[in-house]
C-alpha cells in the first residue's frame, strides 16, 4: 500500500530521468546569475556568454524559459552515433554507450532540438541503435541460467526494460535447479 504495485518490481522511466538529470551539462547562459548554493552543490555564476557547467535539470529548466542554450554532449551528434550504429550491427556484443544515454538524449531532444545539429537524423540513429541492442538482449536470453549473467555495456534504460522478464526467468530457473543451499542459514529455511 505504501508503494503502488506498479512501482514494486521495477523503476519507471521518469524516475530514471530524474536520476539522469543530476549529470552535468555545459550551457551558454543568456542571463546572468550569481553563484548560488543548491543542495547538490554551488553553481554559477552565470555570465553570458561564458559557458558554464550545471546539472541537466537546471539546464532544461533554463532552456524552457529561454534563458540559455545547451551545448550537446560529445556523444550526441550524427558522426558518433553513426559509428556506434555500425559497430552495433557488425559486432555481436554491445558497444559502449554512455550509461544513461537514452534518458539524456530524450531530455535534450525534447527541450533543446534547436541546439543540436540535425535532430531528426539523431532521433533515427538512436532508434536504430536501440533496436539493434534490443535484438541482442533477446539473444542474450538464451544464456540465462540460475547462476549469473554478465551484461557488458548494457545501459540503464535497457536494463530496466529487460528486468521483469529476466528476473522472473532466473528466479524460476533457480527454483528448478535446487542446488545445495548457500552458506546463508536464512535461505536454507526458505528452500
Amino acid at each position: 500500500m505504501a508503494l503502488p504495485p506498479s512501482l514494486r518490481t521495477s523503476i519507471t522511466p521518469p524516475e530514471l530521468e530524474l536520476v539522469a538529470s543530476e549529470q552535468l551539462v555545459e550551457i551558454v547562459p543568456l542571463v546572468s546569475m550569481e553563484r548560488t548554493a543548491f543542495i547538490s552543490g554551488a553553481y554559477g555564476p552565470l555570465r553570458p556568454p561564458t559557458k558554464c557547467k550545471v546539472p541537466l535539470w537546471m539546464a532544461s529548466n533554463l532552456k524552457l524559459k529561454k534563458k540559455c542554450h545547451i551545448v550537446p554532449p560529445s556523444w550526441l551528434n550524427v558522426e558518433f552515433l553513426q559509428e556506434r550504429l555500425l559497430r552495433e550491427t557488425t559486432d555481436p556484443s554491445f558497444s559502449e554507450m554512455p550509461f544513461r544515454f537514452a534518458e539524456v538524449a530524450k531530455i535534450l531532444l525534447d527541450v533543446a532540438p534547436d541546439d543540436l545539429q540535425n535532430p531528426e537524423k539523431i532521433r533515427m540513429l538512436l532508434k536504430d541503435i536501440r533496436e539493434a541492442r534490443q535484438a541482442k538482449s533477446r539473444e542474450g536470453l538464451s544464456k540465462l541460467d540460475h547462476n549469473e549473467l554478465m551484461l557488458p555495456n548494457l545501459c540503464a534504460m535497457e536494463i530496466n526494460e529487460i528486468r521483469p522478464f529476466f528476473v522472473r526467468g532466473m528466479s524460476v530457473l533457480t527454483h528448478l535447479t535446487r542446488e545445495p543451499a548457500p552458506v546463508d542459514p536464512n535461505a536454507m529455511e526458505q528452500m
Partner: protein
Amino acid sequence: MAGPSFIDRARSAADDDDDFPIGDFPGGGRQTIIPQDLAEETPFQQLIRHWMNERHAPDILPGQEMLLGRLLDHIRKQSSDVELLRADPDSSEEEHFRIMLVQTEVERVKFVIRSYIRTRLHKIEKYAKYISANPEIHEKLSKAELDHARRYARLVDYHFNQSVLQSLPEQQRSSEENVPFMPPMTAQPDKLRPVFAHALQDCPPMRLPDGTMSEMQKGQIVLVPFYVVEQLLLRGEVELV
C-alpha cells in the same frame, strides 16, 4: 542588508566538479560505465544510490537516518531562505528565477526522500511479522519503523483472529504452519531473487550458486541472486541498478 544565507554559503562553498560529468567518449574507451569516485559523492547522490538499492533489493537494507537528517535540515534551510527572499520587496528578476530553481531542486530532493521512505515502509509492512520475530533485523530499522512494524504485526494478527481464525477448529488456528513445498506462512525476504549489480570498484571474489567463484571488475554489470552480492552491497562496493 544581510542577504539570505544560501548566497553566503555559495560564496564560501568549495568548487565541486565531482558529479557525473557527461564525459568525452573517445572511440576506444576502456570503461564500461562513466567512472565515479565514491568518496566525492554529494549527500544527495548518496541518497539516490541508497534509494535505488532499496528499490531493487528484496530485503530491507540498513536505514540511512543520518543522511536523511542532513538532507532534511538542508531542505529546511533552503525553504526558509526562499521565504526570506520572497518577502523582500526589492528582489529583482534575477532573484525570481533563482528562487524558482532552488524550489525545483527542493522538490526533487523531497521526491527522492518520499520514495525512499515509502519503499522501506512497504517492505516493513510486508515482513512485519518476520521482523517482530527476528531481532537481528532490528538494527536495520529506525526506532519509529520498528515500533510501527510491531504494532502493525499485532493489528494484522488480531484482525485475522477476529475475522477467520477463531471460528476454525483448534488444530487449524495456527498462523505458524509450515507445509512442505509451500512458502512459509510468515512472509520472509526472498534472498534468492535475482538483481542487477553494478560494481563501483574492483570487488573481492564472491561465491555463485553453483559453487564457482566470480570476481567483478570496476564498472561491470551482472545479474545474480541477491544473496551473492548482499555483503558487497552492505559494504558499498556494489550498487543495484
